[in-house]
């Protein structure tokens, strides 16, 4: 019957709902995954919050790669996921990014810049986006939150924050390091101890008819090779310890 399931899985691709910030990296990883396992996949990229809601209302996804750990937890508590399928597949790494700072500027970009607050500063919305929450923690850690609070441009998610800086509407802000790596842009990595870890967790949906393939994907992503790839794209090292 496992074979049957597999063959079924082959006819219907594995649907992976993924937080937009991880989509590019996932797509790179999936090339290997499909080559190795022959499992076809379908990537559905979006906002974690929306996907969370959709899963709660019957969205036909098999695996959900969230940008945070809170939503996977809630899904677990509400019994929407396969037991014990919640895993941390990546840890977010923050970076300070300035779109006005030339790569060849004499003075290198540094966190010292933060001590003199600019008129506008972009972060993701701390109330709804995990990267935003972490960015707020960084500013708090540096004792700058009060200063910055009124200057913030809050993006709906880290993707929008990056777009806002890149378009030069605002020139400075905290983004995800992977965005800079993927786009080959300079930035300053923010030490991980300035904020709570940004655990990006995945879950396998209980209603999935493709659980075997989903499990395979989970294993694949957590494998050392994949984790190394993930880190190479600007995510933080995962502690061997589980979430």
């Amino acid at each position, binding site marked *: 019957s496992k074979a049957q399931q597999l063959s079924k899985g082959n006819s219907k691709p594995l*649907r992976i709902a993924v937080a*937009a910030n991880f*989509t*590019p990296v996932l797509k790179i990883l999936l090339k290997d995954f499909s080559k190795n396992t022959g499992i076809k996949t*379908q990537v*559905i*990229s*979006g906002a974690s919050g*929306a996907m969370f*809601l*959709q899963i709660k*209302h*019957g*969205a*036909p*996804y098999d695996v959900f790669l969230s940008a945070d750990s809170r939503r996977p937890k809630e899904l677990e508590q509400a019994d929407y996921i396969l037991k014990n399928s919640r895993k941390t597949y990546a840890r977010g790494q923050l970076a300070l990014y300035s779109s006005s700072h030339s790569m060849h500027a004499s003075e290198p970009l540094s966190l010292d810049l933060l001590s003199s607050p600019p008129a506008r500063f972009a972060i993701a919305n701390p109330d709804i986006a995990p990267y935003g929450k972490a960015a707020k923690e960084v500013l708090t850690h540096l004792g700058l939150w009060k200063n910055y609070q009124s200057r913030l441009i809050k993006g709906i998610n880290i*993707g929008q924050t*990056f*777009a806002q800086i890149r378009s030069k509407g605002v020139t400075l802000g905290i983004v995800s390091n992977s*965005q800079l790596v*993927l*786009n080959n842009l300079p930035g300053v990595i923010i030490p991980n101890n300035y904020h709570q870890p940004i655990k990006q967790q995945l879950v396998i949906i209980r209603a999935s008819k493709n659980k075997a393939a989903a499990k395979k994907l989970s294993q694949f992503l957590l494998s050392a090779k994949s984790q190394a790839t993930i880190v190479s794209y600007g995510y933080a090292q995962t502690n061997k310890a589980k979430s």
Partner: protein
Amino acid sequence: MINSDLQALITTLEMAALTTVILLIIGTPLAWYLAKMTSRFKVIIEAVVALPLVLPPTVLGFYLLIAFSPEHLPGQLWQQTTGQQLAFSFSAIVIGSVLYSLPFVVQPLQKAFEQLGDSLLEAGALLGAGPIDRFFSIVLPLTKASFITAASLGFAHTVGEFGVILMIGGNIPGETRVLSIALFDHVEAFDYARAHLLAISLLIGSMVLLAAIYWLNLPKRPQDKARMEQKESLTYE
């Protein structure tokens, strides 16, 4: 990859075309009714029809998602009738688009009907034309321009729709993944080159389509044109 955009294009066109047809079928009698009714309930119905305008699409999508899920009555009924889940299906995004774009079809039609006046309808009735006949032989040709406006507003708004469809459609390729979402994905995925390309194609395609529609709506006979030019010089400074 380009293939996936093509698929999104096809889904978009199917959805927008179907939505526009449904909108015209539902919207026309509704607009007629609103144009001709005078009871005080009129304002309430008008306000209800206009509501989708006021709610942010994602929020509307949120409520529609709840309604369409198998746990709630509309979704349940749908599942019982069709055997299929409503949420995350092509039907769902069509229904969502219809609700969302309804005011864009109803309001221009309603105003056109209100401005039409009675005298020609009376003349038609006295030549033996019943209400349906009058609608097709008098109302429709005289308000053709407003029908084209209504249809193109409805179509374009559906093509550009994003929040509602994303929420209730779930971005499933080949089924509910439409162009606007694909475009958004490209932006989100920092794939600006493709985003620009798609946006420009969308722009040019829509412009050609809209221009074709409006062109169809231009007067055709030369003397019409002459008269219209006359008009212009009198009425426009």
